[in-house]
């Protein structure tokens, strides 16, 4: 007993009254913290330390992610939504209650799915959805394929590897709007444009790439080329880092097994790179579904001009949302919110499908 008293800081009396010897370390990790008798101080439990470390990230998450998501979700389900002056709150629900008390306005806010009904009736929304779908379907596979091929080629050359890596990484550090301006010049109308000059050497007539009267597909071509060029740097970087973790012995083994270069690529490199490919696929899908900046950058005629005579030829879902947020039209904000909720659900579904498909194809 004397022995126990000397070490009293390690004795914990449990609920049923029996004394149990516990080491302070394990106690601090698993329990509610404990009192260090000798030093007269309280040792913080491990879970609290975790929360404290999370606080900075949590604050930003709440302010910039969780609050807007909840708010737009609320707004999308409020018919005839408008901000009431003097409600003193930017929370949609508080604003909603204030609007019910507001007798001066003839517009009555109420819960409902009117925004969704409106949006599904809206021709522009379907156009935006179609455009976004097209961009996703064409751009993502192309950019992954091109990125993968460039990464494998870059990885197999030894001299000047660093230089080439830098070259391919340049678009990543370049501003999207600036890149768009460059592309705008490259694909400018008439025979003066760089690209038109290039195809002119092969006897092809100048094409009106981005002008107001340009065809939808010539615009699409430029959008895709631009998007691939803009996004490929990061993909190459991820693929290169994945490639460098693949044991060189697999390639030696495959060579001895008589596999051709293409077989090695298809049956060794791609499967071993599958975690990176999945990551890039998911992020590319999300990125492409959120396409916006590359289109306004290319057409260069303001934040709600998406090409064509009416400025909506290549409008995307994000473009649609932005256009309605800017709009002074009645209940436009509700429509924008509904659009963003639909986009969120679409992306979520796409990602879930990808994870399900990849379950048996990704080898960690």
């Amino acid at each position, binding site marked *: 007993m004397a022995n126990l008293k000397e070490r009293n800081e390690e004795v914990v009396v449990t609920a049923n009254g029996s004394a149990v010897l516990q080491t302070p370390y394990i106690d601090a990790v698993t329990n509610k913290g404990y009192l260090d008798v000798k030093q007269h101080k309280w040792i913080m439990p491990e879970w609290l330390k975790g929360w404290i470390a999370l606080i900075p990230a949590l604050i930003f998450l709440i302010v910039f992610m969780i609050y807007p998501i909840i708010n737009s979700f609320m707004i999308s389900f409020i018919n005839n939504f408008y901000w009431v002056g003097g409600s003193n709150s930017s929370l949609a629900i508080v604003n909603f209650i204030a609007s019910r008390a507001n007798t001066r306005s003839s517009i009555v806010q109420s819960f409902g799915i009117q925004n969704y009904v409106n949006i599904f009736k809206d021709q522009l929304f379907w156009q935006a959805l179609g455009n976004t779908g097209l961009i996703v379907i064409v751009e993502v596979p192309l950019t992954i394929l091109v990125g993968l091929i460039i990464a494998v080629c870059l990885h197999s050359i030894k001299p000047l590897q660093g230089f080439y890596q830098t070259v391919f990484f340049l678009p990543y550090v370049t501003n999207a709007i600036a890149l768009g301006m460059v592309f705008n010049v490259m694909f400018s109308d008439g025979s003066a444009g760089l690209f038109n000059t290039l195809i002119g050497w092969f006897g092809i007539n100048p094409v009106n790439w981005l002008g107001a009267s340009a065809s939808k597909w010539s615009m699409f071509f430029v959008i895709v080329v631009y998007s691939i060029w803009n996004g490929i740097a990061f993909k190459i970087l991820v693929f290169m880092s994945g490639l460098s973790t693949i044991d060189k012995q697999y390639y030696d083994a495959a060579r001895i097994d008589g596999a051709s270069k293409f077989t090695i690529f298809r049956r060794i490199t791609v499967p071993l790179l*599958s975690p990176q490919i999945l990551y890039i696929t998911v992020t590319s899908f999300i990125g492409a579904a959120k396409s916006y900046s590359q289109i306004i950058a290319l057409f260069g005629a303001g934040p709600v001009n998406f090409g064509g005579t009416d400025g909506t030829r290549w409008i995307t879902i994000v473009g649609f949302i932005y256009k309605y947020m800017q709009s002074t039209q009645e209940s436009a904000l509700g429509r924008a919110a509904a659009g963003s909720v639909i986009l969120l659900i679409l992306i979520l579904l796409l990602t879930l499908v990808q994870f399900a498909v990849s379950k048996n194809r990704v080898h960690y």
Partner: protein
Amino acid sequence: MEVRIEHLTKSFIGKKGSKTTAVNDMSFVVPDGKLVGLLGPSGCGKSTTLYMIAGLHKPTDGHIWFGDEDVTNVPPENRGIGLVFQNYALYPHFSVKQNITFPLDNVRFPSPLQAYKTRVNEAKSQIKKAQKAGDQEALALHEKELAEAEEALQKATEELEQIKVQDPERYAQLTKKKLTKEEKDEIAHKMARLVDIEPYLERKPKELSGGQQQRVAIARALAKSPRVLLLDEPLSNLDARLRLQTREEIRRIQKETGITTIFVTHDQEEAMSISDVIVVMNFGVIQQIDEPQKVYDEPVNLFVAKFLGSPAINIFDGEIKGGKLYVAGEVFDDDKVYKEEYHGVIHHEYAFVKGTRMTSEEYQADLAAHPERLEGLQPKEVKALKNPEIEIVQEDEEVVKKDRLVKIGVRPEAFTYSKKGSLPIDVQFVQHVGRDVSVIGRVKGQETGMKIIIPSESWKDVVGQNELRFEPKRFYVFEESGERIK
């Protein structure tokens, strides 16, 4: 398939232009159907040699022959080898079966008409050459050859057509380009049975134990029925018990298939237990090529003697004086080889400081003894005087010696206890372990430790003594440079 290595050399050029020779002018022959172990300490060039035989490294110089074929410049996939990597390199995303059949997937059979077509093309190119050279005689000769070749091709084509009509099954067999799935499955099962992993064919490599992975790697290497099987440190990733089991397994598989096998190891026991022939290497140079027991019993030099055997051989000093071998001041051995002169080269390195031959320590001591030399000098000059340039002069001196120091090696188990033994030992302690008694001590008057293992019965004779005498049953005498004298 006999493997012949001729004057094989491999040098690597470092980043700063320094040259490292990993394998130096190596020649040896692996007889058909034998298991040869390349044995040496880490970094001795044994793996490099193996990779050169595999074709993954290109030799700087020399040739590799598989039978009568010079394969030095043949790419690895066409050499007909199977290689088992040290960490197996099993494809993690394939099942065991896919791993074994992967080499078979890449097999392509040439068309039965390929040989005839090659002959025609060859003749055509010869004709072009003759036309360019304007050699009428050769031209006529090659035109005749072309006509013959074309006729043969025509005949073969017709024959094939006939087979197609008469015996479609045989035609399919003749013209197939790849192995069918059934054939691949059959080979996979056969190989799996050979290495005893048949129940695990559908598993992924990471679901297998180290020993099982090892066997899958061997099965994969054997799937294409290679001419030569190469194993790179096949047992180093296994635990002790599995190692013992697997090396018997490797021996069994090699015996069953009769395939010429070369394996690399740094573990002398492993090499001794399963090889037909051991090649002992050090610093990229072959030290000895012999049967395992012979390498153990008759080491050609001090390195081989020290490298083989566990516990290690006892090495102690001796002196040749007046034609006799002395140890601890007593005559240890008398033989006429000790009367022969020793021709050797001693490598000297002299340091010259300011034109005088002395070491830099001697120079500093000299400078400290004469402080007046530094008086009245500029700081720069003082610094220069304190840190003089040292010139190193190297010199090889050829020596002819009769009386000299030598090294004597005796294996721990090669001693017998005898009161009249020729080797006096200062005993440190005596251990009784199992059926043996180990005596740990030193040769009288020397520093190097000795371990002597004698049968248990001698326990009562040796226990509690401070000084004992032993008689070596066999011993080896080496020059200090390592060459064997006796």
